[in-house]
C-alpha cells in the first residue's frame, strides 16, 4: 500500500517529465547552475505518446530530472528524520547531538539544493511524502531511544550512499549535475561513517554485514559482499584478505531496491 502511494507520486512525476522532455531539455540542462527557471512551452508528439504510467521503479534508466526527484525524496526522508530527532525531548545530547545537528543541516541543504536544481531544469520538484519513521511499529522507540534512532540513521545513510551510487550513470549527460550528485554522495558516506562509528561499528561495511541490529535493514546491505568489479575478481589480484576487499568497495543499489527500503518509512 505504501509503495503504491509512492509509485503513484512518481507516476505524476513521470508525466511532468514527459512534458519536460518535450521541451528544450538540452537547453534547460545548460542553464543548470545559473538558477534560471525554465517553463515547458512546447510539446512534441513523440514523447507525448509514451505511456505516462512509467514509474521510477519500472524504468531501467531514468531521466536526469527523475533521478533528482528520486534523490529529493530520499533527502526529504533524511531531513525530516533528523529534524524530528533533534526536536524529540531528551533523545539526543552532548557530542551525538552535535553530530546529528550537522548531518541534519546537510540533509536540509540537500533538499534545498535539489529543489533548486530541478527547478533550473524547468521541472517541478516533487513534494515530500508523509513519513512513518517507526516503519509501521518496527522502530516504535525511534524518537525515544537514542540507540534505535542511531540504528535507523545508519540504515538511512548507508542506503543514501548506495542510492546515489546507483544513479550516477543516469546523470552522465550533464557533467555539472553529475558532479553535484557525487558531491552529495560523498557527504552521505561521511555521515554513514560517523554514525556507524558512534554506534561502535567500523565506518565501512564488511561483507554484507548488517550492523544495525535490525533485521528489517538487511536489504540495506544486500549485495555489499560483491568483489567483482569490471569483470575482475578484486580478491585475486591482491594479497589483501577478502573481508578488507569487500570493505574497500561500496555497492550501488537499484532504484527498486531503494524504493523498497524507503517505502517502509512512507505512510
Amino acid at each position, binding site marked *: 500500500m505504501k509503495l503504491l502511494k509512492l509509485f503513484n507520486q512518481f507516476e505524476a512525476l513521470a508525466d511532468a517529465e514527459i512534458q519536460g522532455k518535450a521541451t528544450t531539455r538540452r537547453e534547460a540542462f545548460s542553464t543548470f547552475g545559473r538558477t534560471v527557471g525554465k517553463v515547458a512551452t512546447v510539446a512534441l508528439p513523440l514523447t507525448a505518446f509514451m505511456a505516462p504510467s512509467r514509474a521510477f521503479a519500472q524504468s531501467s534508466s531514468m531521466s536526469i530530472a527523475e533521478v533528482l526527484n528520486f534523490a529529493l525524496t530520499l533527502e526529504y526522508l533524511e531531513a525530516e528524520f533528523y529534524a524530528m530527532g533533534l526536536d524529540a525531548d531528551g533523545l539526543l545530547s552532548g*557530542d*551525538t547531538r*552535535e*553530530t546529528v545537528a*550537522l*548531518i541534519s*543541516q*546537510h*540533509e*536540509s*541543504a*540537500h533538499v*534545498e*539544493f535539489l529543489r533548486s536544481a530541478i527547478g533550473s531544469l524547468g521541472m517541478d520538484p516533487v513534494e515530500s511524502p508523509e513519513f512513518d519513521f517507526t516503519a509501521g511499529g518496527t522502530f516504535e522507540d525511534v524518537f525515544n531511544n537514542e540507540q534505535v534512532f542511531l540504528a535507523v540513521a545508519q540504515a538511512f545513510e548507508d542506503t543514501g*550512499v548506495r542510492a*546515489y*551510487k546507483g544513479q*550516477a*550513470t543516469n546523470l*552522465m549527460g550533464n*557533467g*555539472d549535475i*553529475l*558532479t*553535484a550528485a*557525487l*558531491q*552529495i*554522495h*560523498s*557527504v*552521505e*558516506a*561521511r*555521515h*554513514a*561513517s*560517523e554514525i556507524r*562509528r558512534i554506534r561502535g561499528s*567500523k*565506518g*565501512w561495511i564488511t561483507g554484507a554485514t548488517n550492523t544495525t541490529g535490525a533485521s528489517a535493514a538487511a536489504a540495506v546491505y544486500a549485495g555489499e559482499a560483491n568483489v567483482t*568489479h*569490471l*569483470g*575482475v575478481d*578484486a580478491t585475486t*589480484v*591482491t*594479497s*589483501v*584478505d577478502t573481508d*578488507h*576487499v569487500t*570493505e*574497500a*568497495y*561500496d*555497492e*550501488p543499489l537499484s532504484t527498486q531496491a531503494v524504493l523498497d527500503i524507503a517505502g517502509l518509512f512512507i505512510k
Partner: protein
Amino acid sequence: MQTPKFLSSRVVADRDPSSRRRFLRTSGLGLAAAGLLLTGCEDDDDPVIMNNSVNLGSGDVGVLNYAFALEQLEAAFYAQVLQGDYYASATAEEKQILLDLEAHERAHMDFFEAAISSVATAIPALEVDFSSIDFNSRTSVLNTAQTFEDLGVSAYNGAGRLLQNPDFLVVAGKIVSVEARHAAAIRSINSGSPTAFANSEVVDANGLDVSRTPAQVLSMASAFIITPIDASGLPQ
C-alpha cells in the same frame, strides 16, 4: 646526449624503480631533454614513460591511471604508517582504522593495476617522497592521512564527469564513498570534535563535498610524488 629514436619509441618501465633508473642512466637521457621529448609523445590512450616522467595517457584510461596514481600514493603512505612508532603506540581504535585503510588502499591500487592492464597500459610504480612526514608523530601522520583522504574524495568527485564509460563511473563511485568513509573517520580521530567528519572545511553551505580537477589534485599531490606526472592528455 639525446637519442632521437627515443622520440618515437614508447618505453614502459618495469616496476622496479632502480632498474628504471639504471635504464635511464644507460639511455643517457637528462632532465634537460624532458620537455622536448614530451612534446614528441604520440597522442593515444596509452601512458608513456619518457625519461623519468610518467604520462597518464588520455581518455578513460588516462582517468583510471590518474586514480591509480592517487591510490599508489595512499597505499605507499599507509604502508609506511604501519612501520612507524606512532602506529606502534596508537590506541586500539586508531590501529584498527589505520590497518583497515592500509588494506583498502592496497586493494584499490592492486585492482587498478589489474583492471587497467587488462585493457591498456597501467602506469608504473611512482616514486614517493614522504620526507616531510614524521611517521613517529601522531599529528604528522593523521594530518597527512586527512589531507590524502580529503584529496582523494575531491579527486574522484571531480573525475566522474571526465569518464565516458559508465562501467568505469560505477567503479569510481564504489571507491569514492569508501574514501569519504575514511576521511570522516580520520578527521574524527584526528580532532576529536563531533563535527570534524564533515565540517565546513570539506562541506559547503549547499551540503556539497569538495570537488577538484586533476590539475588541482596533482598540484597538491606533487609535494609527495617524485616522479613527474604528465596529465596533459586527460579529458578537460
